[in-house]
Structure formats: structure tokens, C-alpha cells
């Protein structure tokens, strides 16, 4: 046992013992992660910019815009014509653009079914929600217009009646008030956890590359000639990089929670546990890749590039619910998904009766991957440097 700790402690000293090591492995990454946390946390109450062009002179266009403004989720900015609107969306001055065609009200009132145009440069959660919202309002207006049509039987000033109804509806006599006790986790928590996971994963690569250096420099070979067992070497090395990782997590959490005052909405020890479990898995991934790839420099590159696709699939960048079904199934194989889920469960107040599942899965992944990854400790192969 003593020998394991000696090896582990040596590993810790090598990584973060010097001032430069402390700067590059602990301070710099923590500041980056903490900065991302505070930036993303600051996005919380920001309302998306929506560009619009209203060619319609009647009541329907105005009603639609008023209703959108009413939701409080969007900042509406006018553009003078369709070309300017497109240009604005392409220049990313606003996330979404909506174009209300001329005669929209008149067409609705005469029983036709005109369509609104929505422009987006890329699909995001905001643009999906916006489309759903506009669709709901537009369908209500369509229904109302048809009611007017049916009642008046096509006689009389359909447009005026329609406008009057919309004006009346705009007063929201029937509606709802929302009481919010802040019981639910904030929207940004998922993104913040995702970003933290991504950076943790890339950090772990650096400690695993130390083990690789040992192999390449044939230090590993000498270690094996000392009176230590191979499992002690393996455990010691993994324990060492785990300890470095734990220190990194602790610094990130402390910076985020007590210096930047970001409220994680999850008990700090639970968040810490989730991140630590995830770090074990990413250590496993890093060492497995290192075991499979002979050239240590390529291993680092491969690791960096495994990172992005798994983070995408695991839901670090966008909520899993927007992805198609088969992709959500594939996401089950990503450790990120389970870590995010664990944080989610914890944030909604779930106890260990729900939390055990993500933790068990993370643990299992870590065990399997670390077992495969311990192959990198084979002393006799130094790796070719092609």
C-alpha cells in the first residue's frame, strides 16, 4: 500500500509540484472554466433578438408581434424589407428572422391560409421554441378568422370583425399567472456542467500523457525492475493522476462557488462526486486511447478529437431532448450524458434512490476503461515515434 502512495505522490509532485506546473495544470484551467461558468451564467436572463419585417398593414401582423413581445422572451428589432432581414440573419445580428407577408390579415380574413416565413442561420433551442410559439399564435388566428368567416357567411367586412376580435384577445381576459418558487434548476446549469466536463476531459489527457512519457523514456522499465508489483505501479499511477484531477476539480468548484458566486443549485459535495466519477471515466478513455495508439503525440491529438464528438452526443452543447430518437439512444453510451443527468437529478432534489443509476453506470464505465487502459503501463513497449 505504501508503495502505491509513493508512486502516486511522486506523480502529483511531478505535475503540480513546481510553480510552472501549478500554473499550467491548476490555475490556468480553473480560471478558464470559472470564466466560462460566469459568462454562461450571465446569459441567463438574456432575451433573444428577433428581426422582423412586417409587410402586413392589418391587425394580424401587429397582433402577432405584440403577442411575441408579450412573452418577454424576445427582443424584436424591425428591418425594412426582406433583403435587409435576410442580410441581418446572415450577419447574425439576430438569431431568428420573421417575415410577415403583405395582405396577411386580408388573406386570413378571406379564409385563405397564408404562411409566415421564418429565417434562421442555424438551428438552436431558441429558434425551435420561437417557431413553435409563432405557429401556435398563427394557428389561433387562422381558427379565429375561420370562425369569423363562418359566422358572417362571407358577407360584411370580415377584416374589421377579425381585427376587433384580435384586439379583444390581445387584452388577455382569459389567461394565467405564473407563480415561480424557483424550484427548478436554471436553464444554464446543463450547459455549464457540459462545459466543465469538456474541460475536465481535456485536462485529464495531460496527466495521462505523463504516464506515456514514462513509458517512452523507459522509466517504466526501471520501475518494473524495482521490488514493486505491477498492480502497484498501475494503481499508483492512476491514483496519482486521479489526485491531480481531484485538486483541479476542487479548485474549479471553489473558484466558481465562492469567488465568482455562481449558484450551482446542487450541494457542492454532490457536484464534486459527479465530476470525480466523470474524471475516472475520462482517465479510462485517455489511457485506453493511449494504449491503442503507439505514438504518444498522436494519442494526445486523438484524445482531443474524441472529446468533441462525445461531448456533442452526450449533450454538453445542447439538450438531448432536441435530438432524434436514435441519437438519444446513442447518447446512452456517453459518460457525459450520465454525469449531466446526475447533476440534473441532484438539482431537482432527487435522492440516492435515483442517483445510484448514473453513478453506477459511470463507475462501471470507469472500471472497464481503466482495465483496458492499464495496458499502457506495459513496460516493454516504448512506442514508435514515426
Amino acid at each position, binding site marked *: 500500500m505504501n508503495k502505491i502512495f509513493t508512486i502516486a505522490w511522486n506523480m502529483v509532485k511531478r505535475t503540480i509540484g513546481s510553480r510552472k506546473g501549478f500554473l499550467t495544470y491548476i490555475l490556468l484551467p480553473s480560471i478558464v472554466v470559472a470564466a466560462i461558468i460566469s459568462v454562461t451564467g450571465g446569459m441567463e436572463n438574456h432575451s433573444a433578438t428577433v428581426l422582423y419585417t412586417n409587410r402586413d398593414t392589418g391587425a394580424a401582423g401587429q397582433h402577432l408581434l405584440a403577442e411575441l413581445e408579450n412573452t418577454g422572451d424576445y427582443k424584436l428589432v424591425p428591418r425594412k424589407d426582406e433583403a435587409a432581414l435576410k442580410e441581418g440573419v446572415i450577419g447574425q445580428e439576430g438569431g431568428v428572422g420573421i417575415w410577415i407577408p403583405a395582405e396577411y390579415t386580408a388573406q386570413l380574413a378571406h379564409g385563405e391560409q397564408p404562411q409566415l416565413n421564418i429565417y434562421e442561420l442555424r438551428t438552436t433551442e431558441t429558434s425551435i421554441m420561437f417557431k413553435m410559439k409563432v405557429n401556435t399564435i398563427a394557428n389561433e388566428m387562422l381558427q379565429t378568422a375561420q370562425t369569423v368567416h363562418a359566422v358572417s357567411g362571407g358577407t360584411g367586412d370580415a377584416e374589421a370583425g377579425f381585427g376587433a376580435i384580435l384586439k379583444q384577445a390581445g387584452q388577455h381576459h382569459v389567461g394565467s399567472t405564473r407563480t415561480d418558487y424557483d424550484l427548478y434548476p436554471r436553464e444554464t446549469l446543463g450547459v455549464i456542467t457540459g462545459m466543465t466536463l469538456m474541460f475536465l476531459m481535456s485536462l485529464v489527457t495531460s496527466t495521462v500523457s505523463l504516464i506515456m512519457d514514462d513509458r517512452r523514456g523507459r522509466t517504466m522499465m526501471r520501475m518494473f525492475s524495482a521490488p514493486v508489483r505491477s498492480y502497484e505501479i498501475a494503481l499508483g499511477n492512476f491514483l496519482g493522476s486521479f489526485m491531480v484531477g481531484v485538486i483541479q476539480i476542487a479548485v474549479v468548484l471553489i473558484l466558481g462557488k465562492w469567488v465568482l458566486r455562481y449558484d450551482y443549485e446542487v450541494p457542492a459535495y454532490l457536484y464534486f462526486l459527479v465530476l470525480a466519477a466523470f474524471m475516472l471515466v475520462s482517465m479510462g478513455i485517455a489511457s485506453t486511447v493511449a494504449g491503442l495508439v503507439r505514438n504518444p503525440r498522436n494519442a494526445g491529438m486523438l484524445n482531443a478529437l474524441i472529446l468533441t464528438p462525445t461531448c456533442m452526443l452526450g449533450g454538453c452543447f445542447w439538450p438531448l431532448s432536441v435530438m432524434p430518437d436514435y441519437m438519444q439512444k446513442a447518447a446512452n453510451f456517453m459518460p457525459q450524458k450520465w454525469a449531466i443527468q446526475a447533476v440534473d437529478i441532484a438539482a431537482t432534489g432527487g435522492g440516492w434512490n435515483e442517483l445510484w443509476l448514473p453513478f453506477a453506470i459511470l463507475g462501471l464505465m470507469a472500471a472497464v476503461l481503466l482495465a483496458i487502459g492499464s495496458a499502457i503501463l506495459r513496460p516493454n513497449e516504448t512506442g514508435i515515434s*514515426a
Partner: protein
Amino acid sequence: MNTWTIMIYELRRLFRSRSMLLNMFLLPLVLIFLLGASLSGVVGVKGAAKIDPVRVAVVNPSGEGAGPSAMIAAFLKLPEVQKVIIPQEAESRQAAESGLRAGKYGYAVIVPGGFDSEVQSGKKAQLEFILGKNRTDNMVAGTAFDNFLSTMNYKQAAVATLGPEALTVSASLPADHEAVKLGDLNNGGRTYTASQFYAASMLLMFLLYSGITVTSSLFSEKDNHTLHRINSMPVKGSELFIGKILGVGIVSIVQCLAIILLSDWLFGVYWGNRPGLLLLFCLLMIIASMTLSIVICLFSKTAASASSIISVITVCMTFLSGGMAPLPDAWVNTIGAVTINHWVLQAVIRMMLHSELSQILPNLLIISIICLVMFSAAIFSYRKVGYHE
């Protein structure tokens, strides 16, 4: 002559490495596929296909001479509502609230006394919603009730304006009618899809990543102590350096072509109507990223630190230019503008959308200036530091 030999050897070395091939050609395609597949399912207006029903506490008291609201009760019995909402009677507001806090309910709806009569007489009638612990549940239940209320709101308005006969006619609405269509941003040419944006941003990210190849190429000679041997040959230092950089540059160009062509063939990503200009932009991007990594490599001591600095810069630039996760709109044109990606990304998207040449030229000017600055910085640092052990 020496330069060519070194370059050809460099190319041979790079193309023989299996992991490099995986990295440079397979991974970008996997990423483009992932992005396209994850986000293309949501292009339609329809919501998620599978929704877990939410337990909603309904407080529906009988008060002020009226019974419990029949409208709400009828609404909750509709089959399509039952799919998303499991109504549960709660006695009072307090009971519902404590149930919410305990996680017994996902959402709570408080119906005021005499809701129905208020609605029918055209007066103000408001339901109270209490939000629960789960964001998705809140959204599902909130949307269901909101749609119900807004239909009622329009009906009430119709009755108030047209008289009671408005209730008797039932508006027939084709079930699958979508009142909104996704407009085409394009100025001619093929239809623009959102996956094109991600394809472009991934291409640029990988072009930036090609800097890491520079690191491994420059540092492997040092680490293997072969640089000494090469220096003892009749090869000038500059010839060696230029040869190596040319080799890596050619691989990056091949990679760029492969991503563009394969994503076009396999996933139908349309890259716009100006292939020449597109390639010019990619070339400038490659020059910028390679000169950037040359500067970093020359000033850092180990390969590990150089490649970690490069990958941090790459990820940060891609992130800030909005290529990964959506950023606030205001950011893209302010903070995003300090990244190299931003200028090329905007230009590539404009090409995909068949914009006028005059709209693309400013970006070309800026990226050329960036390249020029980076190039002179690379030459300066090579003069200053040099490439030797």
C-alpha cells in the same frame, strides 16, 4: 532540391501514420454527420416525439355559489391531453404547493372560484400556475394549459365581438397545417439548411487544428535527436524548415479538399457557387493557422506545451465565433470578431448563400491582413529563435 526531398519525406511520414489519417479525414466527417443528424431532426415545427406525462395538481374548488369548473374538467378528460398530463386533485393551494416541493407533483394549476362564469360573461379570468421542479415538465404542462387558455381567450374575444353564435360554428382546420414555413435565406442556388452552418464551422475548426501537425513535425526531430544529424548534412536550416512546413501545408490542403468533397457527396452539404474563392479562403485560413502554430512552437520548449496551447486557442476561437454552442447574438459581432474563424465563417456562409461578391471582399481583405501579420511574425520569430536543438 533539398526542400523537395524533405517535403516528400514529410508527406510520406504523415500519410503512413494511421491515427493521423483517422484524425484528419474521418473525424471531421463524423462531426459533421453528428451535428447534421442531431440537429436536422428538429427542423420541422413539431415538438419532441415522445413526451413523458406530467403529474399536475389541479385545485378546482367549488366556491362563490358555483361548482368546480366544468371547462377545466372537460379539458383534462380529452384524450390528447391525457397523453401529456395526469391530473391529480389537490384540496387547496397549500396542499398543491407542498406536494410540488416534495416532488409529488410536477406542476400545479389553481383554478379560481367561478372560473367558468367569468369566462362566459367575458370578464377577466386567470388561472394560477405554480412551476415545479423539472424544466421539461414545466414546459410540457405549461404549453398544454397555455394552448387551452389561449384558445379560450380567442373564443371569448370572438363571442364578445360577434355574439354567441361564434360558439356554435366550429372552425375546421386541417390537422397538419403549419402556419409557419422555414424561409430560404438563399439568393438562388440550392436551399440553405442549418447543417451547412455547422459543416462550415467544423471545417474551420479542423483547419485550425492542423497546427498540431506542425508541432509534431517540428518537435519529433528534436525529441529523437535526428535534428542534429540533419544539421550535419549539407542542408540549410531554412530549407529543412520550409520543407517541413510545405509538407504539412499540403496535407492540410488535401484534408480541406477531402472534407469539402466528401461532405458534399455523403451528406449533401452545399458549399456555394464560388469554389475558387472558397479554396482561397481555406488556403488563407491554413496559412494563418500554420503560421500561428509556428510562432507558438518556436517559443515553447516542449511539444506537449505547444500542442496544448494550440488546442486551447483552437477550441476558444471556435467557441467564441459561435461554432460550437450558440452564443448570445450580440457576442458574435463583438467578441467573435477577434477570432480568425469569424471572418472566414461569415465569408463561407455568404458563399453558400450566393451573396454578392462585394459583400465577401471585406472579409477577404481582413483575413489577408491577418495572414500577412502572422506570416511576418513567423519569419521574425524564425530569424530570432531558429530551428535547432
